[in-house]
C-alpha cells in the first residue's frame, strides 16, 4: 500500500486560504472519487470539495474553524501500490442516456 497526500486546491479568485467548516469523511473510511470530502469557507463563499481520489482516508488536516493555506496538506489517502503515482484515475464515461434540448421553438414572426 502507498500513501498519497492532497493539498488544499487553488480555489480561484486569488484566494490563499480557507477555513474548515466540517469534514464529511473520517480516517479509516473508504471514499470514492468525487465523493464530498469537506466543506470549507473562504472570504467569498462556502465550498464543498469533492475527493480527487478513491482510497482509504489515512489522515485529515484541520478541524472546524482551522485555517488551511492553499497548497498545504488537506488529506492523505492509502491506495494500492499499483495506483500510487496516478493522480485521480478517470472513470469511464458512459454514453449519454438522455439529452435535453432547451432551444425554444420560436414562432415564425
Amino acid at each position, binding site marked *: 500500500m502507498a500513501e498519497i497526500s492532497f493539498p488544499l486546491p487553488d480555489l480561484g*479568485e486569488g484566494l490563499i486560504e480557507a477555513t474548515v*467548516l*466540517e469534514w*464529511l469523511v473520517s480516517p479509516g473510511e473508504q471514499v470514492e472519487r*468525487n465523493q*464530498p470530502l469537506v*466543506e470549507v*469557507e473562504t*472570504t*467569498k*463563499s*462556502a*465550498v*464543498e470539495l*469533492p475527493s480527487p481520489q478513491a482510497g482509504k482516508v489515512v489522515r485529515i488536516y484541520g478541524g*472546524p474553524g482551522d485555517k488551511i493555506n492553499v497548497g498545504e496538506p488537506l488529506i492523505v489517502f492509502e491506495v494500492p501500490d499499483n495506483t500510487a503515482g496516478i493522480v485521480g484515475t478517470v472513470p469511464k464515461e458512459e454514453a*449519454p*442516456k*438522455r*439529452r*435535453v*434540448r*432547451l*432551444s*425554444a421553438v*420560436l414562432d415564425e414572426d
Partner: protein
Amino acid sequence: MSGRHTGEQHSHTVEGTDPQLYVQVHEPQNDAGLRPVLLLHGFSSSSKLNWEDSGWLTALLEAGRRVITVDLPGHGRSGAPEDMDSYSPSRIRADLLQIVFDAGARPLRDGDPSSGLDVIGYSLGSRLAWEFGATQHELVHRLVLGGPNVADPLADFDLIAAQRYLADGTPIADESTAGLLKMAMLLPSNNIFALLSLVEAIKTEPYDPAEAVPHMPMLLVAGEKDDRAASMPELAALGAKAGGMVEQLVLPGRNHTNAITSRAFKQGAISFLGV
C-alpha cells in the same frame, strides 16, 4: 458527477424583450421519476457559486432529481440588460414560469409524482420562491427556503450612497448598504451596475411576505448565527395561517454565508422534497 446538461441563454421572450437569462437543465443518471427542482440563488451569487460549488447540484442529481438552474439577471452567466424592467421581481417570476415550462415542468396532477415543480431558494432566491409559490399553486409542489427574509434588506438599500461610493469613495453610512455592496464587489465577475439596477427594481416592488402566501408545504432553513433564524417563525406562522404545512430547520453554528454548504441543509431538503 455533474450529470448531463445543456445550457444556453434563455431566448423565449415573455414581455417582448429578451431577458438574457442563463438556464441549465441537469439530468440525473438514475431518474427517481419525481418532478424537476428549480434552484434560485441569492443576491450577488450565481448558480455556480450557490448550487454547484457548494455541492447541491451533485447531491440532488445523486438523489435522482432533475434540476433546473437559472442565473438571475446581471448575475453569473446571464446577461445584464440595460432596461430596469428586466430586473423587477414580477418580470423575473414571469420569465421563470416560462423557463420551467420550456424545461418540461407541468402542472400538478393528483397521483403523478412527476408532475409539478419543487423550488429551492436561498436569500433573495427564497423571496422569489415564496412569491412564485404563492402565485403558482397549480404548479409548485413544495418549497425549500434557505436564509429567508421577512423584511427586505434590498428595499432599504441606500442607492445614492452606493453610487457616491462607487464614484469617489465617499464612505457609506448605512451598515446594511455598505455590507451588501461589499459583498457584491467581492466577486470580480459581478456586474455591479446590473446589481444596482436589480436593487432599484426591487425598491419598486419591495418584498412583503404577508401580501401573498404560499399554501404548499414549506421547509424553512437558516443558520443559527443568521439573524433570519430568529424571524423564521414569523414566516412559518404566515404559512400555517394560510393552511400550509411548515417545517423549520436551524443549522447549528452556521451563518448566512456558510449555511449553504451544510449537509444537514441538503439532506433535509432532499428528504422534504422526496415525496
